[in-house]
């Protein structure tokens, strides 16, 4: 019936600009403002976690020189560092930050479909962060249970923060899940329902595909975290025994009996493994777009890239127990999960080959975003290869308690996504602010971060193979196999870590300085095809598209098309337009040079 009429009225409705400062910047329902709010909070809390890691490294590298932290602080910081980086920084930044900013702009819509719920999502996220931070100030301090919060020790006396600290952590996570669900419903529904005319699913940039699948994973997997948080809170506060077995603590039999710590581990990792891909899939998508734009080359195997994203998403639900090889579960389970883990390497490898083939014979511009994207490929391959070691039960068992694991997941889940985050910020900052980030500072930032992180994590692999155990506050000289070489390596790692952390100040300075003094970017500084670069205003105004929504006529990877006057054809250029030139319609273009 009156479908068109409704759409028209809808868009008039969306063009009512917010007037007051508070409606515009604080209680804003504009996806771009919410995205920036999400990103700033995520980066802020991420800096707290970064400082914690520096304090821990100073302790590990120079135990006799610095006495900044006590053993219990070490456990508390390691817990907070892990949880903040994985959930409150990476998940929030990729989905709440980039997801919010890019989905409506790349799909050609005016905003998210439920703007009010989108706003609530951010405020719940902020509340989750505040509750988490409150944990630092409660009696007993934050929880020191390790970021996996395994019972029974998470709520047993003797663990730092077993009183209020763990409650703050569990409450904060539960609030985060609520916040994410509100945001996630928005992202999925917007992608499915609010694309502009001509934007078929297979014309969406891979960034949107990655964010889309990651959101679906989050929506289905975060309930597992919610369930485990609720049940652990009950064990802690009401004396139930979901997870708590009968234990004797300090000579006293506790009230608990019969609970199953393994049940917690299953629930936690049923969330925890998809979580890896909740962070990785948006990174995969974004890096595909960065490579394509800055190599002036269509992405190699677009359809296969989409399929790989979907396959990785589905497989990520059946690999969780590879985190539990040493938990004492049935060994036949290990066989099953090792197999699925190795299978997931297939679609992942397809993606890596396609990235490299996108670069092959491309017109590579070594811009700062491109440097970060290429740095990501290196780091991800390194981290992925050590994953093959740890995915196999027999190799994992001796390595799982050592620094090898720390090195592996920092490479694959810490450094790799963070490199993409940096690349994405350098890439989209001109659209967000209208100004380019300073190029020279960006290059310093990239090379120092890239080389610095290798200086940190490569020696950690070596420590792991030596058998140096993780989770230790300090290593006494009386342990035979931890010799002088280990201490020297630890000093080196610490110096590198302090260096890398300090270099991030350059980045922060660049962000602040370029906001006012950066070079004027114009609407499309990278000469990119996707819709967000075709907005009538830069930065885009409320409603994004002025009077009329864009219409899409082509996929987002029309770079270096033979016969076109420029080396890119934006998605909203109709066939026959002078900008499309006399480019032949057919699958040849852009593939051969």
């Amino acid at each position, binding site marked *: 019936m009156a479908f068109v009429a409704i759409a028209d009225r809808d868009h008039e409705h969306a063009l009512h600009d917010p007037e007051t400062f508070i409606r515009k910047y604080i209680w804003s329902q504009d996806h771009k403002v919410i995205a920036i709010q999400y990103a700033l909070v995520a980066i802020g809390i991420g800096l707290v976690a970064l400082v914690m890691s520096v304090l821990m490294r100073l302790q590990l590298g120079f135990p006799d020189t610095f006495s900044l932290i006590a053993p219990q602080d070490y456990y508390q910081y390691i817990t907070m560092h892990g949880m903040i980086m994985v959930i409150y920084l990476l998940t929030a930044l990729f989905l709440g930050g980039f997801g919010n900013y890019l989905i409506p702009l790349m799909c050609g819509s005016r905003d998210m*479909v439920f703007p009010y719920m989108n706003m609530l999502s951010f405020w719940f996220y902020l509340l989750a962060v505040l509750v988490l931070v409150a944990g630092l100030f409660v009696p007993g301090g934050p929880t020191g249970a390790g970021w996996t919060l395994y019972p029974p020790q998470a709520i047993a006396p003797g663990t730092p923060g077993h009183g209020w600290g763990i409650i703050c952590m569990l409450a904060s996570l539960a609030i985060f899940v609520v916040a994410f669900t509100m945001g996630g419903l928005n992202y999925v529904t917007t992608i499915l329902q609010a694309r502009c005319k*001509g934007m078929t699913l297979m*014309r969406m940039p891979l960034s949107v595909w990655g964010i889309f699948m990651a959101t679906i994973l989050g929506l*289905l997997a975060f309930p597992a975290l919610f*369930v485990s948080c609720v049940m652990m809170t009950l064990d802690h506060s009401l004396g139930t025994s979901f997870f708590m077995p009968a234990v004797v603590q300090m000579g006293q039999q506790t009230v608990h009996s*019969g609970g*199953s710590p*393994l049940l917690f581990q299953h629930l936690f990792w049923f969330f925890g493994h998809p979580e890896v891909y909740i962070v990785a899939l948006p990174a995969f998508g974004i890096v595909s777009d960065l490579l394509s734009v800055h190599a002036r080359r269509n992405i190699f195997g677009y359809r296969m890239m989409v399929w790989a994203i979907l396959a990785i998403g589905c497989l990520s639900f059946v690999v969780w127990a590879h985190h539990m090889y040493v938990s004492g579960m049935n060994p036949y389970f290990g066989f099953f999960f090792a197999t699925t883990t190795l299978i997931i390497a297939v679609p992942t490898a397809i993606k890596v080959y396609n990235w490299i083939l996108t670069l092959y014979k491309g017109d590579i511009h070594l811009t700062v975003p491109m440097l970060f994207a290429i740095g990501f490929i290196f780091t991800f391959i390194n981290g992925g290869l050590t994953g093959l070691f740890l995915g196999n039960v027999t190799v994992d068992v001796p390595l799982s308690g050592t620094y090898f694991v720390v090195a592996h997941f920092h490479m694959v889940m810490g450094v790799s996504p963070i490199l993409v985050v940096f690349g994405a910020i350098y890439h989209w900052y001109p659209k967000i602010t209208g100004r380019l980030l300073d190029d020279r500072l960006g290059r310093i930032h990239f090379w120092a971060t890239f080389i610095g992180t290798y200086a940190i994590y490569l020696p950690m692999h070596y420590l792991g193979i030596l058998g140096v155990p993780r989770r230790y506050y300090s290593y006494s000289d009386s342990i035979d196999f931890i010799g002088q070489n280990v201490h020297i390596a630890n000093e080196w790692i610490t110096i590198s870590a302090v260096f890398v952390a300090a270099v991030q100040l350059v980045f922060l300075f660049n962000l602040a300085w370029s906001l006012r003094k950066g070079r004027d970017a114009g609407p499309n500084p990278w000469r990119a095809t996707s819709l967000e670069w075709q907005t009538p205003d830069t930065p885009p105004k409320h409603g994004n598209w002025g009077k009329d929504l864009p219409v*899409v006529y082509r996929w987002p990877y029309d770079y270096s098309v033979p016969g076109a006057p420029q080396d890119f054809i934006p998605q909203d250029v109709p066939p026959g337009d002078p900008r499309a030139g006399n480019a032949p319609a057919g699958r040849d273009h852009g593939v051969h040079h």
Partner: protein
Amino acid sequence: MSLTVAYAALATGIIVWLILVRKLSTKSWEAQPASATDVEAPRWPAQRVGLWVFLAVITSLFGLFTSAYYMRLHGAHGSAAPTDWAQLSEPPVLWLNTLLLIAASVAMQAARKSVRSSAERGFNALLLGGLLTLAFLGGQFYAWSQVRDSEFFSPLNPAIAFFYLLTAVHGLHLLGGLYVWGRTLARLRRKDVEVIDVRLSINQSVELVSVYWHFLLLVWLGLFAVMLST
């Protein structure tokens, strides 16, 4: 856990399949026929899609609670079956509550049907559905107090703990539904409603409420069956 895995696999499978069958074989790098840019068929309203996605999330949530229930009952893989699980004899009032919730669901369906012809009849049926739901929640509360006073009561018994946990989570979802129900009732009372909200007609609002109610009825029947059978 295998239950939840099966669910997650099914859910992602359905999503992938829905997208795949029609869309994912497109060779988007080739020139598209002009029709690809034409207006597509009218889509579902966003609210309906949002609700169905939300139902998938809730299914995951209750699937995981149920998985946890069975794993705690039989022992997680590798650990021995626990001995502290003392079977709960479910209070008989739960049967009455079940009937109330079924009646509520029927009333919601009636509202969905009648609101198309008459706002007045739709309002009455919707009101009845909500009141029956409130009665259900009252009955659940009564069941809680019965269990509280029974000799079996102990937070240490996982059967008791799960009984409270599952009914509470289900009840909270109904309370959330009642909030939307209240707003829909208010909308039905207003005369100028079509002008105010152009994005979703009142018929569609009532439809979404009824879908949510049917879904929570299914969840309750599932939970009740699980608790009765163990």
